[in-house]
Protein backbone atom coordinates (compact mmCIF):
# COMPACT_ATOMS: atom_id res chain seq x y z
CA UNK A 1 0.00 0.00 0.00
CA UNK A 2 1.39 3.33 -0.82
CA UNK A 3 1.12 6.05 1.72
CA UNK A 4 1.04 9.62 0.61
CA UNK A 5 1.69 12.56 2.85
CA UNK A 6 1.41 16.14 1.84
CA UNK A 7 1.42 19.27 3.91
CA UNK A 8 -2.31 19.62 3.41
CA UNK A 9 -2.94 16.28 5.10
CA UNK A 10 -1.00 17.37 8.14
CA UNK A 11 -2.48 20.83 8.25
CA UNK A 12 -6.15 20.33 7.51
CA UNK A 13 -8.18 20.19 10.70
CA UNK A 14 -11.76 20.36 9.46
CA UNK A 15 -13.31 20.43 12.90
CA UNK A 16 -13.57 24.19 13.33
CA UNK A 17 -14.47 25.68 9.97
CA UNK A 18 -14.54 29.30 11.18
CA UNK A 19 -11.05 29.11 12.58
CA UNK A 20 -9.77 27.42 9.44
CA UNK A 21 -11.34 30.11 7.27
CA UNK A 22 -9.72 32.80 9.38
CA UNK A 23 -6.39 31.04 9.11
CA UNK A 24 -6.77 30.72 5.36
CA UNK A 25 -7.48 34.42 4.85
CA UNK A 26 -4.52 35.20 7.03
CA UNK A 27 -2.41 32.89 4.90
CA UNK A 28 -3.69 34.65 1.78
CA UNK A 29 -2.66 38.04 3.13
CA UNK A 30 0.71 37.02 4.41
CA UNK A 31 1.31 34.46 1.63
CA UNK A 32 2.42 36.67 -1.29
CA UNK A 33 4.44 38.97 0.98
CA UNK A 34 6.15 36.08 2.66
CA UNK A 35 6.84 34.52 -0.71
CA UNK A 36 8.41 37.78 -1.95
CA UNK A 37 10.60 37.92 1.15
CA UNK A 38 11.72 34.33 0.66
CA UNK A 39 12.42 34.98 -3.02
CA UNK A 40 14.47 38.04 -2.14
CA UNK A 41 16.37 35.95 0.41
CA UNK A 42 17.17 33.35 -2.23
CA UNK A 43 18.05 36.04 -4.80
CA UNK A 44 20.95 37.31 -2.69
CA UNK A 45 23.04 34.38 -3.87
CA UNK A 46 23.04 35.70 -7.43
CA UNK A 47 24.50 38.62 -9.35
CA UNK A 48 22.62 41.80 -10.25
CA UNK A 49 20.61 40.48 -13.25
CA UNK A 50 19.33 37.24 -11.80
CA UNK A 51 18.79 38.91 -8.44
CA UNK A 52 16.38 41.42 -9.93
CA UNK A 53 14.56 38.68 -11.86
CA UNK A 54 14.08 36.51 -8.78
CA UNK A 55 13.15 39.57 -6.75
CA UNK A 56 10.39 40.38 -9.23
CA UNK A 57 8.76 36.97 -9.29
CA UNK A 58 5.13 37.29 -8.27
CA UNK A 59 3.42 34.47 -10.15
CA UNK A 60 5.25 31.52 -8.61
CA UNK A 61 4.89 31.05 -4.84
CA UNK A 62 8.23 30.24 -3.26
CA UNK A 63 7.04 27.15 -1.44
CA UNK A 64 6.21 25.45 -4.74
CA UNK A 65 9.72 25.79 -6.11
CA UNK A 66 12.16 22.93 -5.75
CA UNK A 67 15.09 24.00 -7.87
CA UNK A 68 16.57 27.06 -9.54
CA UNK A 69 18.59 26.06 -12.58
CA UNK A 70 21.27 28.35 -13.98
CA UNK A 71 22.97 26.96 -17.08
CA UNK A 72 25.43 28.90 -19.16
CA UNK A 73 23.85 30.24 -22.37
CA UNK A 74 20.54 28.60 -21.53
CA UNK A 75 17.31 30.16 -20.28
CA UNK A 76 16.96 30.74 -16.54
CA UNK A 77 14.68 28.02 -15.23
CA UNK A 78 12.89 27.15 -12.02
CA UNK A 79 11.41 23.75 -11.31
CA UNK A 80 8.32 23.10 -9.31
CA UNK A 81 7.19 19.58 -8.44
CA UNK A 82 5.59 19.04 -11.83
CA UNK A 83 6.61 21.88 -14.14
CA UNK A 84 9.68 23.58 -15.59
CA UNK A 85 9.19 27.36 -15.77
CA UNK A 86 11.36 29.75 -17.77
CA UNK A 87 11.70 33.34 -16.58
CA UNK A 88 12.21 36.55 -18.52
CA UNK A 89 13.89 39.77 -17.35
CA UNK A 90 10.74 40.93 -15.57
CA UNK A 91 10.39 37.75 -13.59
CA UNK A 92 7.40 36.57 -15.62
CA UNK A 93 6.97 33.02 -16.85
CA UNK A 94 7.58 32.82 -20.60
CA UNK A 95 8.68 30.52 -23.42
CA UNK A 96 12.31 29.29 -23.45
CA UNK A 97 13.17 31.53 -26.45
CA UNK A 98 12.02 34.73 -24.78
CA UNK A 99 13.45 33.87 -21.39
CA UNK A 100 16.53 35.47 -19.83
CA UNK A 101 19.63 33.66 -21.07
CA UNK A 102 22.31 33.10 -18.48
CA UNK A 103 25.70 34.73 -19.12
CA UNK A 104 29.14 33.73 -17.88
CA UNK A 105 29.23 36.69 -15.48
CA UNK A 106 26.01 35.48 -13.86
CA UNK A 107 27.62 32.16 -13.02
CA UNK A 108 30.90 33.69 -11.85
CA UNK A 109 29.09 36.17 -9.68
CA UNK A 110 26.75 33.53 -8.24
CA UNK A 111 29.68 31.27 -7.40
CA UNK A 112 31.48 34.15 -5.76
CA UNK A 113 28.49 35.03 -3.62
CA UNK A 114 27.70 31.43 -2.74
CA UNK A 115 31.24 30.84 -1.51
CA UNK A 116 31.50 34.31 0.12
CA UNK A 117 34.36 35.02 -2.29
CA UNK A 118 36.22 32.09 -0.76
CA UNK A 119 36.42 29.27 -3.28
CA UNK A 120 39.23 27.65 -1.27
CA UNK A 121 36.88 27.17 1.67
CA UNK A 122 34.49 25.16 -0.49
CA UNK A 123 37.32 23.27 -2.21
CA UNK A 124 36.47 19.84 -0.81
CA UNK A 125 32.78 20.26 -1.58
CA UNK A 126 33.48 21.49 -5.10
CA UNK A 127 35.54 18.39 -5.77
CA UNK A 128 32.40 16.41 -5.14
CA UNK A 129 30.33 18.72 -7.29
CA UNK A 130 28.29 20.66 -4.78
CA UNK A 131 28.23 23.56 -2.39
CA UNK A 132 26.19 23.96 0.75
CA UNK A 133 24.79 27.40 1.42
CA UNK A 134 24.19 28.70 4.89
CA UNK A 135 20.65 27.57 5.61
CA UNK A 136 21.22 24.06 4.30
CA UNK A 137 20.27 24.66 0.69
CA UNK A 138 22.48 22.66 -1.58
CA UNK A 139 23.84 23.80 -4.91
CA UNK A 140 24.89 21.26 -7.51
CA UNK A 141 27.83 22.42 -9.61
CA UNK A 142 29.11 21.19 -12.96
CA UNK A 143 32.05 22.43 -14.95
CA UNK A 144 35.38 21.16 -16.11
CA UNK A 145 37.06 18.90 -13.59
CA UNK A 146 40.81 19.32 -13.19
CA UNK A 147 42.55 16.04 -12.46
CA UNK A 148 45.88 15.44 -10.79
CA UNK A 149 47.03 11.81 -10.83
CA UNK A 150 43.50 10.63 -11.43
CA UNK A 151 42.06 12.56 -8.49
CA UNK A 152 39.79 15.54 -8.98
CA UNK A 153 41.80 18.55 -7.91
CA UNK A 154 39.26 21.27 -8.50
CA UNK A 155 36.49 22.40 -10.82
CA UNK A 156 36.97 25.18 -13.34
CA UNK A 157 34.86 26.85 -16.03
CA UNK A 158 31.68 26.31 -14.04
CA UNK A 159 28.89 25.73 -16.56
CA UNK A 160 25.78 25.08 -14.53
CA UNK A 161 24.39 25.54 -11.04
CA UNK A 162 21.38 23.86 -9.57
CA UNK A 163 20.14 25.48 -6.38
CA UNK A 164 18.04 22.91 -4.56
CA UNK A 165 15.80 24.45 -1.97
CA UNK A 166 15.85 22.56 1.30
CA UNK A 167 12.54 22.10 3.08
CA UNK A 168 11.88 21.51 6.69
CA UNK A 169 8.53 19.78 6.65
CA UNK A 170 7.74 18.38 10.04
CA UNK A 171 5.22 15.69 10.77
CA UNK A 172 5.90 13.19 8.01
CA UNK A 173 8.26 11.13 10.08
CA UNK A 174 5.61 10.60 12.72
CA UNK A 175 3.54 8.55 10.30
CA UNK A 176 6.23 5.98 9.59
CA UNK A 177 8.08 6.05 12.88
CA UNK A 178 5.85 3.35 14.49
CA UNK A 179 6.83 1.02 11.66
CA UNK A 180 10.51 1.60 12.35
CA UNK A 181 10.36 0.69 16.02
CA UNK A 182 11.46 -2.77 17.11
CA UNK A 183 10.01 -4.94 19.83
CA UNK A 184 11.62 -3.16 22.78
CA UNK A 185 10.81 0.28 21.48
CA UNK A 186 14.26 0.62 19.97
CA UNK A 187 14.67 2.15 16.53
CA UNK A 188 15.57 -0.51 13.96
CA UNK A 189 18.53 -0.19 11.62
CA UNK A 190 16.80 1.70 8.83
CA UNK A 191 17.67 2.80 5.34
CA UNK A 192 15.59 5.28 3.34
CA UNK A 193 15.94 4.92 -0.42
CA UNK A 194 14.60 6.99 -3.30
CA UNK A 195 15.67 8.56 -6.55
CA UNK A 196 16.91 12.17 -6.28
CA UNK A 197 14.40 14.91 -5.31
CA UNK A 198 12.02 12.60 -3.52
CA UNK A 199 12.49 13.97 -0.02
CA UNK A 200 14.93 11.56 1.62
CA UNK A 201 16.86 14.22 3.46
CA UNK A 202 13.72 16.01 4.61
CA UNK A 203 12.27 12.79 6.00
CA UNK A 204 15.56 11.80 7.63
CA UNK A 205 15.77 15.21 9.31
CA UNK A 206 12.27 14.77 10.69
CA UNK A 207 13.02 11.26 11.96
CA UNK A 208 16.18 12.49 13.68
CA UNK A 209 14.23 15.20 15.46
CA UNK A 210 11.51 12.80 16.60
CA UNK A 211 13.95 10.16 17.85
CA UNK A 212 16.03 12.77 19.60
CA UNK A 213 13.08 14.41 21.33
CA UNK A 214 11.24 11.15 21.93
CA UNK A 215 7.59 10.41 21.17
CA UNK A 216 5.76 9.51 24.40
CA UNK A 217 2.69 8.42 22.44
CA UNK A 218 4.68 5.65 20.82
CA UNK A 219 6.57 4.75 23.97
CA UNK A 220 9.77 6.10 22.44
CA UNK A 221 11.96 7.88 24.92
CA UNK A 222 14.38 10.46 23.60
CA UNK A 223 17.64 8.96 22.43
CA UNK A 224 21.05 10.44 21.84
CA UNK A 225 21.45 10.85 18.10
CA UNK A 226 24.81 11.36 16.45
CA UNK A 227 24.56 12.97 13.02
CA UNK A 228 27.51 12.74 10.66
CA UNK A 229 26.62 15.55 8.30
CA UNK A 230 29.23 15.17 5.57
CA UNK A 231 27.60 17.63 3.19
CA UNK A 232 26.29 20.02 5.80
CA UNK A 233 22.80 19.46 4.48
CA UNK A 234 21.03 17.73 7.34
CA UNK A 235 21.62 20.31 10.03
CA UNK A 236 22.51 23.28 7.81
CA UNK A 237 25.23 24.26 10.28
CA UNK A 238 26.31 27.88 10.20
CA UNK A 239 29.33 28.57 12.41
CA UNK A 240 28.31 25.85 14.82
CA UNK A 241 24.61 26.74 14.98
CA UNK A 242 22.19 24.33 13.25
CA UNK A 243 19.63 25.95 10.95
CA UNK A 244 17.21 23.05 11.29
CA UNK A 245 15.81 21.74 14.52
CA UNK A 246 17.26 18.26 14.97
CA UNK A 247 16.08 17.74 18.51
CA UNK A 248 17.37 18.09 22.07
CA UNK A 249 19.70 15.11 22.13
CA UNK A 250 21.41 15.49 18.77
CA UNK A 251 25.13 15.98 18.23
CA UNK A 252 26.22 17.06 14.78
CA UNK A 253 29.62 16.43 13.27
CA UNK A 254 29.63 18.89 10.42
CA UNK A 255 31.52 18.51 7.15
CA UNK A 256 33.28 15.32 8.24
CA UNK A 257 33.64 12.38 5.86
CA UNK A 258 31.19 9.68 6.93
CA UNK A 259 33.79 6.93 7.15
CA UNK A 260 35.91 8.85 9.66
CA UNK A 261 33.02 10.64 11.31
CA UNK A 262 31.19 7.48 12.32
CA UNK A 263 34.01 6.11 14.44
CA UNK A 264 34.76 9.57 15.84
CA UNK A 265 31.14 9.92 16.87
CA UNK A 266 31.04 6.52 18.58
CA UNK A 267 34.21 7.21 20.51
CA UNK A 268 33.41 10.74 21.54
CA UNK A 269 29.67 11.25 21.89
CA UNK A 270 28.32 7.76 22.70
CA UNK A 271 25.23 7.96 20.47
CA UNK A 272 22.39 5.46 20.67
CA UNK A 273 21.35 6.20 17.11
CA UNK A 274 23.66 7.29 14.32
CA UNK A 275 22.23 9.15 11.35
CA UNK A 276 23.87 9.99 8.06
CA UNK A 277 22.91 11.00 4.56
CA UNK A 278 23.64 9.27 1.25
CA UNK A 279 25.47 6.08 1.93
CA UNK A 280 27.17 4.73 -1.16
CA UNK A 281 30.93 4.78 -0.92
CA UNK A 282 32.83 1.59 -0.15
CA UNK A 283 34.65 3.34 2.74
CA UNK A 284 31.33 4.32 4.30
CA UNK A 285 30.13 0.74 4.19
CA UNK A 286 33.28 -0.54 5.83
CA UNK A 287 33.05 2.03 8.62
CA UNK A 288 29.36 1.25 9.03
CA UNK A 289 30.07 -2.44 9.56
CA UNK A 290 32.53 -1.45 12.25
CA UNK A 291 30.06 0.86 13.98
CA UNK A 292 27.39 -1.86 13.97
CA UNK A 293 29.52 -3.89 16.32
CA UNK A 294 29.34 -1.12 18.89
CA UNK A 295 25.60 -1.48 19.38
CA UNK A 296 24.56 1.77 17.73
CA UNK A 297 21.36 1.84 15.69
CA UNK A 298 21.81 3.15 12.14
CA UNK A 299 19.56 5.53 10.27
CA UNK A 300 20.67 6.34 6.76
CA UNK A 301 19.64 7.17 3.21
CA UNK A 302 20.82 6.04 -0.22
CA UNK A 303 20.02 6.66 -3.86
CA UNK A 304 17.95 3.87 -5.44
CA UNK A 305 14.41 3.91 -6.76
CA UNK A 306 13.36 0.44 -5.64
CA UNK A 307 14.45 -2.44 -3.45
CA UNK A 308 15.62 -4.33 -6.56
CA UNK A 309 17.71 -1.40 -7.69
CA UNK A 310 19.26 -1.13 -4.25
CA UNK A 311 20.20 -4.81 -4.40
CA UNK A 312 21.94 -4.16 -7.73
CA UNK A 313 24.15 -1.37 -6.38
CA UNK A 314 27.34 -3.17 -5.34
CA UNK A 315 27.97 -1.24 -2.12
CA UNK A 316 24.34 -1.39 -0.97
CA UNK A 317 23.97 -5.02 -2.06
CA UNK A 318 26.80 -5.95 0.29
CA UNK A 319 25.04 -4.26 3.20
CA UNK A 320 21.68 -5.79 2.34
CA UNK A 321 23.17 -9.28 1.93
CA UNK A 322 24.79 -9.04 5.30
CA UNK A 323 21.38 -8.26 6.75
CA UNK A 324 22.57 -5.05 8.30
CA UNK A 325 19.33 -3.16 7.90
CA UNK A 326 16.07 -4.24 9.42
CA UNK A 327 13.78 -1.70 7.75
CA UNK A 328 13.79 -0.13 4.33
CA UNK A 329 11.63 2.86 3.45
CA UNK A 330 11.12 3.44 -0.27
CA UNK A 331 10.21 6.97 -1.30
CA UNK A 332 9.15 8.26 -4.70
CA UNK A 333 7.62 11.30 -6.39
CA UNK A 334 4.46 9.55 -7.58
CA UNK A 335 2.22 11.94 -5.68
CA UNK A 336 4.74 14.74 -5.21
CA UNK A 337 7.97 14.67 -3.22
CA UNK A 338 7.86 12.58 -0.08
CA UNK A 339 5.44 9.92 -1.34
CA UNK A 340 6.14 6.81 0.69
CA UNK A 341 5.95 3.78 -1.57
CA UNK A 342 6.42 1.25 1.13
CA UNK A 343 8.14 0.25 4.33
CA UNK A 344 9.77 -3.18 4.18
CA UNK A 345 10.84 -5.45 6.97
CA UNK A 346 14.07 -6.72 5.45
CA UNK A 347 14.40 -9.65 7.88
CA UNK A 348 11.08 -11.20 6.84
CA UNK A 349 10.65 -9.47 3.46
CA UNK A 350 7.17 -8.30 4.47
CA UNK A 351 5.68 -4.95 3.52
CA UNK A 352 4.57 -3.21 6.67
Amino acid sequence: MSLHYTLSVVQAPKVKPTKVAALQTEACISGPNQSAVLWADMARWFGEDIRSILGNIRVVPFHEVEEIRVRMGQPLMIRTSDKDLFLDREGEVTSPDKAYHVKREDLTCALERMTHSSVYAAEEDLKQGFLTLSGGNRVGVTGEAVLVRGQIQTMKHISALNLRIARNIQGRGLKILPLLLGTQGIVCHTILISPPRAGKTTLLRDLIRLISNGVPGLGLTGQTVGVVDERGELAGMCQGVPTYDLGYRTDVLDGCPKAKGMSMMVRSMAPQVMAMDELGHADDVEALMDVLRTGVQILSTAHASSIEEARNRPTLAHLLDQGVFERMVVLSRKHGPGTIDGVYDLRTGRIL
Partner: protein
Amino acid sequence: MLILGCIAIIAGCGCMGLWSANRIRRRPVELREGLMALALLDTEIVWGSTPLPEAFGVVKERTDTPWKEFFGELQERLQRGESASTAWQETILAQNLHFCLKKEDWQVIRDVSKGLGQSDSTEQHKRLELVQRQLALMKDQAGIWSEKQAKMWSYLGFLCGIAGVLILI
Protein backbone atom coordinates in the same frame (compact mmCIF):
# COMPACT_ATOMS: atom_id res chain seq x y z
CA MET B 1 54.34 91.63 17.53
CA LEU B 2 57.15 90.87 15.12
CA ILE B 3 58.72 88.50 17.58
CA LEU B 4 55.40 86.76 18.13
CA GLY B 5 54.98 86.38 14.35
CA CYS B 6 58.49 84.95 14.05
CA ILE B 7 57.84 82.48 16.83
CA ALA B 8 54.55 81.47 15.20
CA ILE B 9 56.24 80.83 11.84
CA ILE B 10 59.07 78.84 13.38
CA ALA B 11 56.68 76.86 15.57
CA GLY B 12 54.36 76.20 12.61
CA CYS B 13 57.12 74.98 10.34
CA GLY B 14 58.66 73.01 13.19
CA CYS B 15 55.37 71.26 13.90
CA MET B 16 54.98 70.37 10.23
CA GLY B 17 58.48 68.95 10.27
CA LEU B 18 57.74 66.91 13.39
CA TRP B 19 54.47 65.71 11.88
CA SER B 20 56.25 64.52 8.71
CA ALA B 21 58.93 62.89 10.84
CA ASN B 22 56.25 61.07 12.79
CA ARG B 23 54.62 59.85 9.60
CA ILE B 24 57.97 58.57 8.37
CA ARG B 25 58.55 56.75 11.65
CA ARG B 26 55.11 55.17 11.53
CA ARG B 27 55.53 53.71 8.04
CA PRO B 28 57.76 50.73 8.98
CA VAL B 29 55.54 50.07 12.00
CA GLU B 30 52.47 49.94 9.80
CA LEU B 31 54.25 47.77 7.26
CA ARG B 32 55.21 45.33 10.01
CA GLU B 33 51.66 45.28 11.30
CA GLY B 34 50.39 44.73 7.74
CA LEU B 35 52.79 41.85 7.27
CA MET B 36 51.54 40.26 10.44
CA ALA B 37 47.94 40.70 9.28
CA LEU B 38 48.70 39.03 5.95
CA ALA B 39 50.45 36.16 7.72
CA LEU B 40 47.36 35.71 9.89
CA LEU B 41 45.10 35.81 6.86
CA ASP B 42 47.31 33.24 5.20
CA THR B 43 47.05 30.93 8.19
CA GLU B 44 43.27 31.29 8.30
CA ILE B 45 43.02 30.46 4.59
CA VAL B 46 45.50 27.58 4.48
CA TRP B 47 44.96 25.89 7.84
CA GLY B 48 41.47 26.92 8.77
CA SER B 49 39.88 27.06 5.29
CA THR B 50 37.99 29.94 6.88
CA PRO B 51 35.76 31.88 4.47
CA LEU B 52 37.05 35.41 3.87
CA PRO B 53 34.42 37.39 5.80
CA GLU B 54 35.13 35.32 8.90
CA ALA B 55 38.89 35.38 8.29
CA PHE B 56 38.86 39.18 8.00
CA GLY B 57 36.98 39.26 11.28
CA VAL B 58 39.70 37.20 12.97
CA VAL B 59 42.45 39.44 11.54
CA LYS B 60 40.51 42.52 12.61
CA GLU B 61 40.44 41.28 16.19
CA ARG B 62 44.17 40.68 16.30
CA THR B 63 45.52 43.87 14.72
CA ASP B 64 45.73 47.48 15.88
CA THR B 65 44.53 50.69 14.31
CA PRO B 66 44.60 51.48 11.38
CA TRP B 67 44.66 47.88 10.09
CA LYS B 68 41.80 47.04 12.44
CA GLU B 69 39.54 49.50 10.60
CA PHE B 70 40.87 48.31 7.25
CA PHE B 71 39.88 44.68 7.89
CA GLY B 72 36.68 45.74 9.60
CA GLU B 73 35.57 47.55 6.48
CA LEU B 74 36.59 44.58 4.32
CA GLN B 75 34.50 42.25 6.44
CA GLU B 76 31.48 44.53 6.21
CA ARG B 77 31.79 44.85 2.45
CA LEU B 78 32.01 41.09 1.96
CA GLN B 79 29.03 40.51 4.20
CA ARG B 80 27.13 42.94 2.00
CA GLY B 81 27.89 40.62 -0.90
CA GLU B 82 30.71 42.45 -2.67
CA SER B 83 33.34 40.33 -4.37
CA ALA B 84 36.62 40.03 -2.47
CA SER B 85 38.82 41.71 -5.06
CA THR B 86 36.59 44.77 -5.52
CA ALA B 87 36.13 45.04 -1.78
CA TRP B 88 39.91 44.98 -1.25
CA GLN B 89 40.51 47.72 -3.82
CA GLU B 90 37.65 49.90 -2.62
CA THR B 91 38.78 49.56 0.98
CA ILE B 92 42.27 50.71 0.01
CA LEU B 93 40.76 53.81 -1.61
CA ALA B 94 38.58 54.50 1.40
CA GLN B 95 41.15 53.80 4.10
CA ASN B 96 44.52 54.94 2.73
CA LEU B 97 44.21 58.38 4.32
CA HIS B 98 44.39 56.79 7.76
CA PHE B 99 47.74 55.20 6.98
CA CYS B 100 51.25 56.62 6.60
CA LEU B 101 52.12 54.27 3.78
CA LYS B 102 53.54 55.39 0.46
CA LYS B 103 52.07 54.88 -2.98
CA GLU B 104 54.47 52.04 -3.76
CA ASP B 105 53.43 50.23 -0.58
CA TRP B 106 49.81 50.42 -1.65
CA GLN B 107 50.72 49.06 -5.07
CA VAL B 108 52.09 45.93 -3.44
CA ILE B 109 49.16 45.65 -1.04
CA ARG B 110 46.74 46.09 -3.94
CA ASP B 111 48.24 42.94 -5.51
CA VAL B 112 46.52 40.87 -2.82
CA SER B 113 43.20 41.64 -4.50
CA LYS B 114 44.18 39.83 -7.69
CA GLY B 115 42.35 36.52 -7.53
CA LEU B 116 41.69 36.80 -3.80
CA GLY B 117 39.47 33.91 -2.78
CA GLN B 118 39.04 32.70 -6.32
CA SER B 119 41.33 29.68 -6.28
CA ASP B 120 42.33 26.79 -4.04
CA SER B 121 44.26 27.31 -0.83
CA THR B 122 47.69 26.41 -2.30
CA GLU B 123 47.30 29.10 -4.93
CA GLN B 124 46.06 31.60 -2.35
CA HIS B 125 49.02 30.78 -0.13
CA LYS B 126 51.47 31.37 -2.99
CA ARG B 127 49.98 34.75 -3.82
CA LEU B 128 49.91 35.93 -0.24
CA GLU B 129 53.43 34.70 0.33
CA LEU B 130 54.68 36.69 -2.66
CA VAL B 131 53.05 39.87 -1.38
CA GLN B 132 54.44 39.23 2.08
CA ARG B 133 57.95 38.83 0.69
CA GLN B 134 57.71 42.09 -1.23
CA LEU B 135 56.29 43.90 1.78
CA ALA B 136 59.04 42.53 3.99
CA LEU B 137 61.64 43.97 1.61
CA MET B 138 59.93 47.34 1.69
CA LYS B 139 59.72 47.21 5.45
CA ASP B 140 63.45 46.54 5.76
CA GLN B 141 64.27 49.42 3.45
CA ALA B 142 61.83 51.70 5.22
CA GLY B 143 63.39 50.71 8.55
CA ILE B 144 66.87 51.79 7.47
CA TRP B 145 65.79 55.08 5.97
CA SER B 146 63.05 56.11 8.31
CA GLU B 147 65.28 56.95 11.29
CA LYS B 148 67.59 59.16 9.26
CA GLN B 149 64.79 60.82 7.36
CA ALA B 150 62.67 61.36 10.45
CA LYS B 151 65.56 63.05 12.20
CA MET B 152 66.19 65.19 9.13
CA TRP B 153 62.57 66.26 8.88
CA SER B 154 62.28 67.15 12.53
CA TYR B 155 65.27 69.50 12.17
CA LEU B 156 64.34 70.65 8.70
CA GLY B 157 60.97 71.97 9.84
CA PHE B 158 62.48 74.32 12.40
CA LEU B 159 65.31 75.29 10.05
CA CYS B 160 62.84 76.13 7.28
CA GLY B 161 60.90 78.23 9.77
CA ILE B 162 64.03 80.13 10.76
CA ALA B 163 65.02 80.57 7.12
CA GLY B 164 61.54 81.89 6.31
CA VAL B 165 61.74 84.34 9.21
CA LEU B 166 65.16 85.56 8.11
CA ILE B 167 63.92 86.10 4.56
CA LEU B 168 60.82 87.94 5.74
CA ILE B 169 62.80 90.19 8.08
